[in-house]
């Protein structure tokens, strides 16, 4: 579904991504972790072309992201993305947030888009807030709306860029619950997160990054049981032992 082949990226002379190669199969949940500044967020933004990269190739459902001839808006409309800071549109109501993409990008009639949006809002438990504005919702609620918004486009895969990092601790679970449910339904997911509990629960594979490189790319049990690289061992011992 998503395949990366030796993806490299530089900011000027500074290399942010080096030779990243991996694959996410259909229905697979892959967690990307690593210390801050290791390039995880940059890597996931390359997948839907929000960040350009200079070398290598990324294919999503057979379409090359880096190819200048690719219709990027069309490709992006098929991949859902959830951001660290939610990024709901603050000047639009929750319902408008959920229907904008459906109407303007997919060309769905407004009534159909609305019905779809409200169904998803129901699913993330926020139907009571349909007429509110993002600023009136808590962080956890905003992030659930953001997930619903991404799902409203019927994506073939979902990208999560640290979806719980900006949340207060008591709100993290309400967002993770939605994500776990999604994973169990068989959604293809690439998730940048520090939530190792989530990784243990639903991930198939874990990718560990350091200094712009994929240091470890292993099955979940292998990663948590016997990480091969010393760097991943250090990282795990630091975030799991407290």
């Amino acid at each position, binding site marked *: 579904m998503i395949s990366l082949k030796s993806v490299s990226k530089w900011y000027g002379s500074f290399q942010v991504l080096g030779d990243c190669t991996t694959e996410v199969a259909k229905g697979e949940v892959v967690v990307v972790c690593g210390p801050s500044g290791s390039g995880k967020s940059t890597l996931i*933004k390359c997948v*839907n072309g*929000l960040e350009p990269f200079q070398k290598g190739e990324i294919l999503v459902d057979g379409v090359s992201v880096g190819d200048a001839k690719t219709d*990027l*808006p*069309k490709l*992006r*409309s*098929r*991949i*859902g*993305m959830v*951001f*660290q*800071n939610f*990024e*709901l*549109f*603050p*000047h639009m109501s929750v319902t408008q947030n959920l229907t*904008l*993409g459906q109407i*303007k*990008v*997919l060309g769905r009639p407004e009534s159909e888009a609305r019905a779809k949006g409200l169904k998803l809002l129901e699913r993330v438990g926020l139907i009571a807030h349909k007429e509110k504005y993002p600023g009136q919702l808590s962080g956890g609620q905003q992030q659930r709306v953001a997930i619903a*918004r*991404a799902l409203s*486009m019927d994506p073939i895969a979902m990208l999560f860029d640290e979806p719980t990092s900006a949340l207060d601790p008591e709100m993290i679970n309400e967002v993770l619950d939605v994500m776990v449910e999604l994973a169990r339904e068989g959604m293809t997911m690439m998730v940048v997160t520090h939530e190792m509990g989530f990784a243990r629960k639903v991930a198939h594979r874990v990718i560990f990054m350091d200094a712009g490189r994929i240091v470890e790319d292993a099955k979940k049990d292998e990663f948590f049981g016997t990480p091969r690289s010393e760097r991943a061992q250090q990282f795990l011992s630091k975030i799991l032992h407290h």
Partner: protein
Amino acid sequence: MEGFDFDVIERSLGYLFREGMVFTLTLTALAMTGGIIFGTLLAMMRLSAFKPLSWVAGAYVNLMRSVPLVLVIFWFFFLVPYIGAWLTGAGRPIPVGAFWSALITFTMFEAAYYCEIMRAGIQSIARGQVWSGYALGLNYWQTMGYIVLPQAFRNMIPVLLTQTIILFQDTSLVYVISATDFLGAAAKVANRDYRLVEMYTFVAVVYFVISYGLSTMVKRLQDRIAVIR
């Protein structure tokens, strides 16, 4: 007050407001609308990753901001008829009249200032908003039109209005091309009746009341927006 005749004001009120003030307000409103639209396009060009586009817009803004307004008014007044002739292929310059000449001038001139305001407004919108629009599959124009510009515009309303108050005052410079704006109308009466002090004092008071009233409103609006945020 010995020697002053303030009755001249009352006698000419109708002319001053129906002719002069209508001209001034129409010019201000239209130049503001045109200036904000053109200025927003310039701001988008300035922020474009395509260098020639941002260079052209930058040069335009810097040129307009470095030339005195009176000169621009003169320059356009004498040049526009030739541009008109060139555009329509007519053999001789096409006179467009003081109003149209002034409108084109102020739209072009103010656009440079509105551009800088809108540029700051666009830059005040977090990068993530743009990403989130793109991630939904919106293209550049849709992301700008539905997400970035509405927020940038809303954030910048107080500053845009403040600039418009300056524009309102600046329109009085059209007297150099003998247009009958509020000041122009007053000047004509003043010269005809030889009541210069009375008329110019009155004009100054009216400009003050309108400008000060508007800026008080802007201040209130600003406080309200600050509370909402």
